[in-house]
């Protein structure tokens, strides 16, 4: 009871803070007031007590479901609402959503669990407690009705937000009993539905957040406007590890709109002006002197040397070992060896990094697009120099995340450090695309040497995979490492778990020689399965060809112990018609992978013309995520992951010169367009019994399936990405 009371008060506090102009502060005209707005903004001025942390029901039967994870396009908001609503038994057409704030989560003992939205965890990491949240609320609503009628709860049934007393036929609705339900103690135990009884989970319902995205009404972080707000443009030292030496603000101080030129931390300078365009124009004119620091000579070539050394070095961590790969390779009838390479890549979210902050001596508020509100709050408090209880973060809709806005809140810290120099004034910091391209947390760079051995029958008897390159965890989260090993490096190649290898290789050794160049790495949609699936699935294809075997048959021989992976592979082969000839000039390639606990496979169909021009005609993709909460959104994610993965395959490369990223914008870091988009045939085949991820797994199979199809078409085995660097004309 006490908890609820506290929350009600904080809800009212927030309303006052955000909607009353003049009274200290206001979000003003362009506050996001849509369904996925910040907490309480969506529920207007009524302060209806919540039924529980997950559910608020208005007197008019509007159901507000609280969503802790961030919506960034992946559909999690709708899927999570479906999970709660399934157990709540509410009228889906009356469902709205809202985000609780990270500060409220902290104050309430993290009642909403983790806010982290990454690793394809949104649904699979919280399905149990959000369904329980819905079920508990349902029981409390029924109990309130039963009490009012003075009948046993067992005599009541519920459907579509209507409670019926079965013996008498009396009915009431959730909206009528919600206030009374809010006064009750929650039941200690609830039973969750058997998946076979689900009515809403598994349905291709429409997203809850579409309409505002069609009219310009949807407010993204970059769109925030507040009365009295100033705008900041920033430049950090382009050389990684470099520092800001000095800047000559006299040159720009009198330019239109300029209010202040400020140092930000030890490596950046920002211009604060009335409009962002004024700030950016002045920043472009600002003379800045950098101390380039210790990495000024780092280049793609010097990084390449580090990685090459790691391919042969004695020191390496073991990620997977069975049998004796060395012995098996020495005794093999035929061995195949190949070295692959995967470059740095930027997330390049469409919305550049941004955050809006307002700082005073005893309070700091931040509005930002973030994949992890709690991490954003932590970052804000650190930069603000205030206790976390005096800070708050309001999550604003993200214009893409892909991992860039989860583990890193450099943009939040910068915004707070700027706002700190203008106490009481809200300041919106927006990065230029150029800043975004040069200050990413890049997909890490690696190389891999693979050696495989075949016996006289052409079966794989041994495989040695040596990865050399960058660890994400060593830079981002050393606490997740064990004994210095970054197990994430081995995603898709591990003996078991969410990222297990899909094959049984009799003698297998997978190693990682960690080589960490001074370029900041980060989690990038799919993380390490992007390159590991290319390495393994391309090389399996090489081995099949060396053995003179069909790539599908060769894989199947290794998959007897991996029935779910085999099932998705078989499904794509069947749908693509692997056993029948492709149309004239079209060639096929396969790939399979287990990632983020889901089993995925793809069959790509490509052609390459005499000029070496690639056309990807179609990709048939299958995914077994265990349970499929919203199949039409899964289709959207599969297609979307292919755009992200194929853009990386075709164009994605950040090169390093003088310790800086050479690319600046979408002209030299291109992304695929609609005219390059293949038809995508999605097979969703949930087999039940586990919860796998959706947003990332299929990205793994797009690139290797296409690379294997290119080999089938041209006889060229491509071992380095992106393809823009390779002449695809037939060998």
């Amino acid at each position, binding site marked *: 009871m006490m908890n609820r009371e506290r929350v009600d008060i904080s809800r009212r506090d927030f309303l006052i803070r955000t909607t009353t102009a003049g009274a200290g502060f206001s979000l003003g005209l362009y506050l996001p007031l849509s369904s996925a707005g910040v907490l309480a903004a969506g529920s207007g001025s009524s302060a209806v007590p919540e039924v529980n942390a997950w559910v608020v029901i208005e007197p008019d039967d509007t159901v507000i479901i609280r969503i802790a994870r961030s919506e960034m*396009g*992946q559909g999690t908001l709708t899927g999570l609402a479906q999970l709660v609503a399934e157990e709540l038994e509410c009228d889906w057409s009356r469902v709205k959503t809202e985000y609780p704030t990270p500060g409220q989560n902290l104050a309430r003992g993290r009642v909403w669990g983790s806010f982290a939205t990454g690793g394809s965890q949104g649904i699979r990491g919280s399905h149990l407690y959000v369904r329980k949240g819905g079920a508990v609320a349902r029981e409390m609503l029924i109990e309130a009705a039963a009490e009012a009628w003075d009948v046993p709860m067992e005599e009541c049934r519920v459907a579509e937000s209507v409670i019926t007393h079965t013996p008498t036929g009396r009915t009431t609705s959730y909206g009528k009993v919600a206030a009374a339900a809010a006064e009750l103690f929650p039941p200690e135990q609830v039973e969750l539905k058997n998946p076979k009884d689900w009515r809403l989970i598994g349905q291709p319902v429409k997203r809850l957040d579409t309409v505002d995205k069609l*009219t310009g009404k949807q407010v993204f972080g970059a769109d925030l406007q507040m009365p009295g707000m100033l705008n900041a443009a920033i430049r950090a030292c382009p050389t990684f590890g470099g520092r800001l030496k000095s800047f000559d603000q006299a040159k720009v101080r009198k330019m239109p709109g300029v209010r202040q030129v400020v140092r930000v931390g030890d490596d950046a300078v920002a211009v604060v002006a009335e409009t962002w365009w004024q700030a950016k124009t002045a920043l472009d004119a600002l003379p800045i002197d950098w101390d380039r620091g210790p990495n000024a000579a780092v280049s793609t070539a010097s990084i390449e040397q580090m990685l090459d050394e790691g391919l042969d070095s004695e020191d390496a961590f073991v990620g997977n070992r069975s049998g004796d790969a060395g012995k098996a390779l020495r005794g093999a009838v035929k061995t195949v060896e190949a070295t692959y390479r995967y470059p740095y890549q930027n997330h390049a979210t469409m919305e550049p990094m941004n955050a809006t902050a307002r700082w005073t001596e005893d309070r700091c508020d931040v509005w930002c697009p973030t994949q992890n509100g709690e991490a954003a709050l932590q970052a804000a408090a650190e930069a603000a120099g205030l206790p976390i209880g005096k800070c708050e973060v309001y999550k604003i809709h993200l214009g893409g995340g892909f991992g860039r806005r989860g583990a890193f809140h450099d943009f939040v810290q910068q915004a707070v450090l700027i706002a700190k120099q203008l106490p009481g004034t809200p300041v919106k910091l927006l990065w230029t695309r150029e800043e975004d391209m040069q200050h990413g947390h890049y997909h890490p760079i690696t190389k891999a040497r693979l050696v495989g051995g075949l016996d006289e029958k052409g079966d794989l008897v041994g495989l040695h995979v040596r990865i050399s390159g960058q660890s994400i965890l060593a830079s981002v989260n050393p606490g997740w490492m064990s004994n210095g090993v970054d197990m994430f490096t081995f995603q898709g190649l591990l003996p078991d778990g969410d990222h297990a290898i899909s094959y049984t290789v009799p003698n297998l050794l997978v190693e990682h020689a960690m080589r960490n160049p001074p370029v900041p790495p980060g989690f990038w949609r799919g993380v390490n399965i992007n390159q590991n699936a290319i390495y393994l699935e391309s090389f399996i294809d090489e081995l099949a060809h060396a053995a003179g075997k069909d790539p599908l048959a060769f894989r199947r021989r290794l998959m007897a112990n991996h029935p779910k992976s085999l099932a998705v592979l078989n499904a794509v082969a069947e749908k693509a018609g692997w056993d029948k000839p492709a149309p004239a000039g079209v060639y096929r390639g396969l790939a399979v992978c287990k990632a983020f606990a889901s089993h995925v496979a793809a069959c790509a169909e490509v052609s390459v013309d005499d000029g070496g021009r690639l056309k990807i005609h179609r990709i048939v993709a299958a995914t077994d995520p265990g349970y499929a909460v919203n199949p039409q959104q899964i289709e959207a994610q599969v*297609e979307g992951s292919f755009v992200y993965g194929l853009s990386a395959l075709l164009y994605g490369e950040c090169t390093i010169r003088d310790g800086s990223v050479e690319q600046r914008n*979408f002209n030299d870091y291109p992304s695929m*367009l609609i005219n390059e988009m293949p038809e995508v045939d999605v097979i969703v085949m949930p087999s039940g019994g586990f919860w796998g991820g959706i947003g990332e797994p299929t990205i793994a199979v797009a690139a290797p399936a296409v690379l294997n199809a290119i080999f089938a078409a041209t006889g060229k085995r491509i071992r380095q990405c992106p393809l823009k660097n390779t002449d695809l004309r037939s060998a």
Partner: protein
Amino acid sequence: MAKLKINGNMLEIDVDGTTPLLWVLREQLGLTGTKYSCGIGVCGSCTVHVDGEAVRACILPVSALKPSQEITTIEGLSADGTHPLQQAWEELDVPQCGYCQPGMIMSAAALLNENPSPSDADIDAKVNNICRCGTFNRVRRGIHLAAQIHKGASKRERS
């Protein structure tokens, strides 16, 4: 001072003429549906119409615009969000994050202005907006569906 006709309203705006239209829309008029993403006219997030044609507002200085030219932003595409593209987009759940979608819709709308029944090849040639979430196949279906909706509506109007 710039005199611009935006979404049917004649406006006088106190602004340096070198300022790109994008920033006048976003910062001076509060029309934030038009997005900043690349700033060099490549990605298309800032696409608006000038006299019905798609232009990249991020590289168009307001001094290059005449008061007689009709500027349309996503906010002015339809009065009530029922342009055939908006209907089709809603029907097919096209957007993911949604950031590129105003520009995408404005590019598609300009295409439909000049070609009410575009082929796939027409779409490939004219809709060159970047979408990192990867909505392209639904965008394509959405344009075809919008063309059908438009045809149905004009048929009803004629009968």
